[in-house]
């Protein structure tokens, strides 16, 4: 056994120019007799907690510490070598290691945190976000922390990313759909910390979670890595929360136009013996009573334009998740128990199109979701296990019982029939959902790792609606018959590094299967009400992603994938209302390929990407016999696109960012000759060009020492797009279709749209408080997303943040 003692000292090459940084370190080393002139070790904090993703550089090797802080050198090290250890948020260390007399070395390295450096550290190492951006499978990583102080929603900052379009039907809290390279709806799946978001039953999502509660957001375009164990067809969004369990407390309150109030609160504390506990909570409320242009009926039964305030569009939502756990025990690296509670109350102002007003329809969704997560590394950290299980119980209500109707001014006219909508309802539907996610990683060698991921997702639905459908000839409520749906997705990947890590490769394979059981409720057609019908299917997918590091500033990456999206329960069994079942549905299938190049310097970064996709048998809702419709494997899509993303740090205080996306997605393989003319027309309801440009600044010591003011402006442009098929030669012409307009006098068109938001953020000298304000839609432009549903005009929002890091316990 041999022992080294590193000497504490400052190293100016790694020190940063911030006076308030606390720079100290201590390193203890231990030696164990192992093999082959290699070093092993562990990077930890002073209290023994591991530091993941620390960078250890020795000789010509660069090693990253694992989640438990451990690391191994990849090859033999001889002679006297300089070792450098650094990690984001910690003071780096450098020293000399003499290997002449040591065959096997084990180092335990303690790094000390930098204090109060969050916003002002110039990081030379790569942040977690930078690393994610450089994975072989491309993801757009949105640094929500950077925008957390602004009165900005998650949907708004996602909308500024290349290739991504967020559509929101109306104001705060309303439905959000993400379009990724033209994939949208159910083709895009959502995750929270790698777990399918379905387990939170709609109580937590892009349309409602405060950005303050997220560490970052990963958006995968095309190829989706297996650690997100879903059946996403062409895109996935992973909301990543703060996982470091440091002692923190943060709160924010935003007030805005339309009586909007958004409150968020998070706190985490550590206790003795590695126990920890915390809470994340938020409350969203908005009247959403913005002005819209509608038409009212005059005395001649003609329609005349009018501008009114929405009067039945309010949204109220609370979410609370409390958790507790323990870390760094022999039997568990982390065990975390949590319970989430939420409730959403929403008023419904109009049907799918803004053709007529409702004044009393309400929707409610509430749930309770306990979950448990267990992480453990085995066998000298060569095997990592991450197990998650949740059981959620949610209930959804739809109430439409009023006898009469409202006009756009809110005036009520009594009527005789029940319900304002075509489907009166007093529905109460219970959903039970179990999700189990098992992730297992094998670190075979530092160059080769095997990852497996298995998701089991089981859903049951049962409910009642006194005003709803009955099986024909009976008084049996169709919702009273239980429907179950279960899907499982198994993924396996082999990650390998070659040529001294210049080449990284991920080869993966996925297996998808589902089983669903229910009653064929379509007008009780030929149905024995005691005879449940089962359907099941399975399929395979596979792919490969590769990245080649050209030099320190640039790399190339490419990926291909053949994947599936399983039919959902509602698509198979209908909704026991006007959506009929279709037991012959097959999974949607898509081939996706991506190619990208990234170049980054200290002040400039750019990424260009291109993609190709061919999707077969897209599941679409199709009318079959009025008033019924049904999901069918209908269309196939083929297309490609390009995007470019740029950022440039200008002078000392400014940063300018921008991106542009152009995509050409078109219909192919139209099977019915009568509709063959649709072949080659654009995929409907999908923008084909959009771009963003932003300018932000950072001025310090403006009104007081150590304060900061950060003004910003963002501009977003979306080219007009069509909701119907327009023959290719009648589309807007010009270069890439970017000028002019359709040569057809179409009413099914969303026109060119421009959105400009302007704001600033002021950080008080203490760095604990910040105040920000933003004017959204500065030009008061008419904006639409879904089927021309009007979005809010100009609005003003003010937000105050309070943040404490590492407070005393």
């Amino acid at each position, binding site marked *: 056994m041999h022992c080294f003692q590193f000497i504490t000292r400052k190293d100016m090459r790694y020190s940063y120019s911030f006076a308030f940084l606390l720079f100290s370190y201590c390193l203890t080393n231990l030696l164990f007799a192992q093999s082959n002139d290699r070093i092993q070790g562990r990077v930890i904090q002073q209290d023994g907690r591991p530091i993941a993703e620390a960078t250890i550089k020795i000789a010509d090797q660069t090693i990253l510490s694992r989640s438990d802080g451990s690391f191994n050198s990849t090859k033999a090290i001889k002679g006297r070598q300089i070792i450098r250890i650094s990690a984001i948020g910690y003071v780096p260390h450098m020293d000399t290691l003499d290997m002449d007399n040591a065959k096997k070395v084990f180092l335990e390295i303690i790094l000390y945190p930098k204090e109060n450096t969050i916003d002002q550290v110039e990081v030379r190492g790569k942040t977690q976000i930078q690393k994610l951006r450089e994975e072989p499978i491309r993801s757009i990583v949105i640094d929500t922390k950077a925008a957390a102080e602004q009165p900005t929603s998650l949907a708004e900052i996602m909308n500024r990313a290349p290739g991504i379009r967020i559509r929101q039907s109306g104001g705060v809290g309303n439905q959000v759909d993400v379009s990724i390279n033209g994939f949208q709806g159910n083709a895009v799946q959502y995750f929270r910390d790698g777990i399918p978001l379905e387990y939170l039953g709609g109580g937590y999502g892009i349309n409602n979670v405060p950005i303050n509660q997220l560490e970052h957001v990963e958006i995968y375009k095309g190829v989706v890595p297996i650690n997100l164990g879903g059946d996403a067809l062409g895109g996935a969004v992973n909301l990543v929360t703060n996982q470091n369990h440091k002692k923190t407390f943060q709160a924010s309150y935003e007030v805005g136009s339309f009586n909007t109030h958004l409150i968020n609160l998070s706190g985490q504390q550590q206790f003795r013996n590695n126990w920890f506990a915390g809470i994340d909570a938020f409350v969203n409320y908005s009247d959403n009573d913005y002005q819209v242009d509608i038409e009212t*009926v005059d005395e*001649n*039964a*003609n*329609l005349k334009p009018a501008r009114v305030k929405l009067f039945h569009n309010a949204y109220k939502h609370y979410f609370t998740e409390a958790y507790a756990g323990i870390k760094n025990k022999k039997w568990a690296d982390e065990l975390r128990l949590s319970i989430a509670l939420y409730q959403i109350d929403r008023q419904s102002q109009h049907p799918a199109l803004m*053709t*007529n007003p409702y004044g009393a329809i309400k929707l409610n969704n509430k749930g309770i979701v306990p979950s448990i997560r267990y992480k453990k590394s085995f066998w000298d950290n060569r095997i990592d296990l991450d197990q998650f299980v949740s059981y959620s119980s949610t209930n959804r209500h739809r109430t439409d019982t009023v006898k009469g*109707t409202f006009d756009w001014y809110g005036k009520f*006219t009594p009527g005789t*029939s029940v*319900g304002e*909508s*075509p489907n009166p309802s007093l529905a109460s539907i219970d959903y039970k959902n179990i999700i189990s996610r098992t992730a297992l990683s094998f670190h075979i060698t530092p160059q080769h790792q095997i990852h497996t991921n298995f998701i089991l997702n089981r859903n049951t639905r049962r409910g009642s609606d006194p005003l709803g459908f009955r099986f*024909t000839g009976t008084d049996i409520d169709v919702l009273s018959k239980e429907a179950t749906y279960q899907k499982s997705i198994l993924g396996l990947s082999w990650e390998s590094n070659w040529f001294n890590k210049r080449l990284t490769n991920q080869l993966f394979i996925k297996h998808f299967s589902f089983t669903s059981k229910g009653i064929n409720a*379509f*007008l009780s*057609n030929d149905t024995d009400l005691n005879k449940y019908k089962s359907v099941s299917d399975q399929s395979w997918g596979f792919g490969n992603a590769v990245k080649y590091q050209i030099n320190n500033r640039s790399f190339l990456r490419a990926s291909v994938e053949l994947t599936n999206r399983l039919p959902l329960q509602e698509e198979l069994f209908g909704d026991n209302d006007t959506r009929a079942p279709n037991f012959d549905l097959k999974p949607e299938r898509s081939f996706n390929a991506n190619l990208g190049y990234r170049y980054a*310097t200290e*002040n*400039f970064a*750019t990424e260009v990407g291109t993609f190709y996709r061919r999707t077969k048998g897209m599941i*679409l*809702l*199709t*009318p*079959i*016999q*009025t*008033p019924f419709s*049904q999901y069918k494997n209908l269309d196939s899509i083929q297309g490609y696109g390009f995007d*470019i993303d*740029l950022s*440039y740090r*200008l002078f000392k205080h400014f940063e300018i960012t*921008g991106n*542009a996306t152009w995509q050409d997605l078109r219909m192919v393989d139209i099977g*019915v*000759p*009568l*509709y063959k*003319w649709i072949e080659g027309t654009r995929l409907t309801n999908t923008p084909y060009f959009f*771009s*963003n440009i932003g300018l932000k600044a950072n001025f310090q010591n403006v009104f007081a020492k150590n304060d900061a003011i950060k003004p910003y402006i963002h*501009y977003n442009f979306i*080219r007009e797009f069509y909701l*119907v*098929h*327009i*023959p290719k030669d009648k589309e*807007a012409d010009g270069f890439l279709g*970017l*000028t002019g307009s*359709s*040569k*057809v*006098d*179409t*009413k099914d068109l969303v026109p*060119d749209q421009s959105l400009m938001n302007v704001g600033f953020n002021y950080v008080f000298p203490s760095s604990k408080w910040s105040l920000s304000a933003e004017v959204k839609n500065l030009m008061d432009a008419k904006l639409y997303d879904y089927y*021309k549903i009007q979005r809010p005009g100009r609005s003003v929002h003010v937000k105050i943040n309070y943040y404490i890091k590492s407070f005393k316990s």
Partner: protein
Amino acid sequence: MNKIGFNFVLGLLSTTLFFGACKSDKTSDPDPEEQSQSKYVVMTVSDRNQPNGGGYISAFDQYPSGTISNVTGEKTLQGVKGMAGWRPYGNWIFKMVRSSDAAQGIEKIEIAPNGKVTVGKFISSKNQTEAAKYNGTGNFVIQNETSGFYWDAAEPLNIQKFSPAEMRNTGSIDLAQVVNANIKESDVNGIKFKSIGQKFLAIKGGKLFANITYGKLNTTQAGFFDDYFPDVYIAVIDIATGKHEKTIKIENTGGIAYINDNPMYDFDTNGDLYIVTQGTHAQGLGGKSKIVRIKANETDIDKDWTLRFSDFRAADDGKFVGVHAKNGQLILVLNTDPLTGGPTGNINSKDIWKFHVVDVTKKSFKEIEGIPTGINPGAALAVVEVDNKVLLRGAVSSGANAYYEYNYATNTATKSFEVKEGGTLTGFVKIQLK
């Protein structure tokens, strides 16, 4: 590199602002060329997965020939929904759904001398929320240029009056007493929905004929295939006085019609009125479907003449979906296979509809030769007359999409013109511009 990067960003900024500043310019100057006083107007429904079908309307100076596109450019009107035919009156064209947003009512389609198709004035339901709950708002009939009648779900027991020339509502006739007169106390609980004129409005000899609906449902399907009574009631109203004269019945048939721009009745050359009923099946699959007649100078159903679907096929496994009457000959489209509905049904999506001609005196069914068996004629104008030609719509899922000219003498149809682009044919009409 920083300079290059800066230039990149500036370039992107310029591009973004340039396109953001671009204005679409959809207006075009009047096209002086090819202006014609008569226009041939074609309507198609364009997609398979839009409820009620969006589509295109184009106007042509000449009678179309060969294979044409119905998406001609800026002169073509594209509509959101309801491209299921139209109801022309003289040189006017009306639709029951507004092209821009599918609001229910009566929309006038305008054709400019240069052939540009635009939407004209629109008569709305008095309450679009009520109109959205029930089918049928905008079911109309025109007496003359200043007088017409329509049904509005906002006032289901009234018949609305309107001026087609001015396109405005001019009042209504309250017929609640007429509707309620047929309801016995024992029927009250079973009848969830009542209306008059929702599915059938016809004018004959100064009388307005309006069906009375007694439905068992009060949801979207109210009044369609949910008839409480086996007989169809039709109120006869004297137009001059606005007074209800009597109520007549079509016995034992269930539903009278399904509403779209196909009116499901027609006047023969001699003035006889033929009315289609669709039968009793709850999914609209027929059973007891029949065609009845009101003779030219009569106001009662002709008890001596009924054409039943079972006269065509004894199994009675289908229904009539329209009628065209001329010189004592009825042109009908009949299902070759038993009708099936629902997810895998053939009623709307399979090639099962075959043209037949029926001599009203003999009640003999003869297949019309030369035109393929097609799809879904009920949601279109299956038979039209243009330039003295009787044209049959031959739309087949395997590809044919044409109007065929019918020759009564040879009982054959020959292809007149075909549409390759714009979707399935749903209407063809000629108008004369003033």
